[in-house]
């Protein structure tokens, strides 16, 4: 077993790193796109209860749909490959991001908002100098949850031809090669765990002065 894993790395290192790269590119593209959607949405949600309610119920529905189902639902509309995978991953990442963004902005004390305005900040300065820095630990927490979800679900994206570490696992399943399944599975776990630790470290750094 161990020998066949070593053997795989000796002969197929290029293939392996390609899979890792595909996995990461897919995951981080999905994260960035979902951030671009979720941050403004969360900001509006923190100001307007109606938008917040809509976001909440939308996220409840999304939590019920399994990741794999979401991937397959999209096939008739956008086909297979990277695009539907990306769309599915973005949809999966939105709930934790939006919910935590709303939470983060709501956690900024009203007094501090009032003081910031009284000192002569406009709304943009209030957002960038006070609200964003103070809600950063919450935003990072949302990013952490989203990223874990994305990295895990990106494995499934191999089913619809988006490549990545899921390819290794699928090939392993098809050929009954336990070594490939192990390599793929453990790599996904390491990526997931590593991103969690990194962001936890960032959260501690961001929250240090509060």
């Amino acid at each position, binding site marked *: 077993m161990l020998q066949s894993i070593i053997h795989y790395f000796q002969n197929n290192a290029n293939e392996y790193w390609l899979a890792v790269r595909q996995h990461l590119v897919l995951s981080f593209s999905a994260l960035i796109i979902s951030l671009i959607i979720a941050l403004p949405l969360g900001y509006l949600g923190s100001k307007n209860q109606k938008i917040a309610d809509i976001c909440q119920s939308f996220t409840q529905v999304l939590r019920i749909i399994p990741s794999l189902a979401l991937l397959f639902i999209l096939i008739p509309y956008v086909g297979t490959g990277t695009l539907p995978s990306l769309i599915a991953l973005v949809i999966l990442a939105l709930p934790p991001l939006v919910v935590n963004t709303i939470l983060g902005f709501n956690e900024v004390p009203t007094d501090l908002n009032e*003081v910031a305005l*009284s*000192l*002569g900040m406009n709304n943009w300065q209030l957002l960038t100098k006070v609200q964003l820095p103070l809600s950063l630990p919450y935003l990072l927490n949302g990013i952490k949850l989203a990223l874990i979800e994305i990295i895990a679900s990106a494995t499934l994206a191999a089913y619809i031809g988006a490549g990545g570490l899921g390819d290794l696992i699928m090939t392993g399943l098809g050929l009954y090669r336990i070594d490939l399944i192990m390599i793929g599975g453990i790599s996904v776990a390491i990526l997931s765990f590593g991103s969690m630790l990194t962001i936890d470290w960032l959260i501690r750094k961001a929250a240090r002065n509060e």
Partner: protein
Amino acid sequence: MNKAMIKFKNVSKKFGKNEIISNLNFEVKEGEFITVLGASGSGKTTTLKMINGLEKPTAGDINVAGYSIQKGKLIEFRRHIGYVVQSIGLFPHMTIAQNIAVTPKLLGWDKEKINHRVDELLDLVNLPRDFKDRYPAQLSGGQQQRVGVARALSANPPLLLFDEPFSALDSLIRQELQHQLKDLHRKLDNKTFYFVTHDINEALYLGDRVMVMNHGKIEQFDTPQNLVKHPQTEYVKQLLDTAQENQKLWEALK
């Protein structure tokens, strides 16, 4: 004669159907130290927030330093009014120096001028200069509120608003800060202080004139001496009685 700094003309404020302020008229002169005394719900904080436009009046006209609040550019305008609150409201993610420098930075001062001003202000509020690089959480409540006062003074505004700034501090520190604030007002030339409190001793000690508010109306607006000698309404009388009640307790315990 001194010019008027704050002028309220027939000002009313409603939250929904509740009328918090009804037909308020008063005038504060440049350089005065005004204390506003009232219970919670008397409308004193709402009145203060209308002075810097955090709350907008439902009716009437407010004039501050010659500008009509409704028409003026609020953002630019606020940079020239100091604001100190009960919760202190220092930004936890900024150092003391950065907290003090918020308004000067917004006004586009250069670095050297800002540094110089921060040093000057720390001296003025009796804080050591090496506090500059500390964060608010590393300071005691009294020290934090000194920074709050320094921040309010940062852009050298002609008018400072205080919203119960000392009521969350313990009594020894509160008294020390009261003395120093009174000194500060004397030292700074021609600055108007508008100070809201629910502590009758604080109001009588600090104010050149004391505005007593109750249910959104002014009961009496007079010097501390006149207030004590000639209380004009039942409410003012009752208020003064409570203070004297305390005095009796002291005498009895001696």
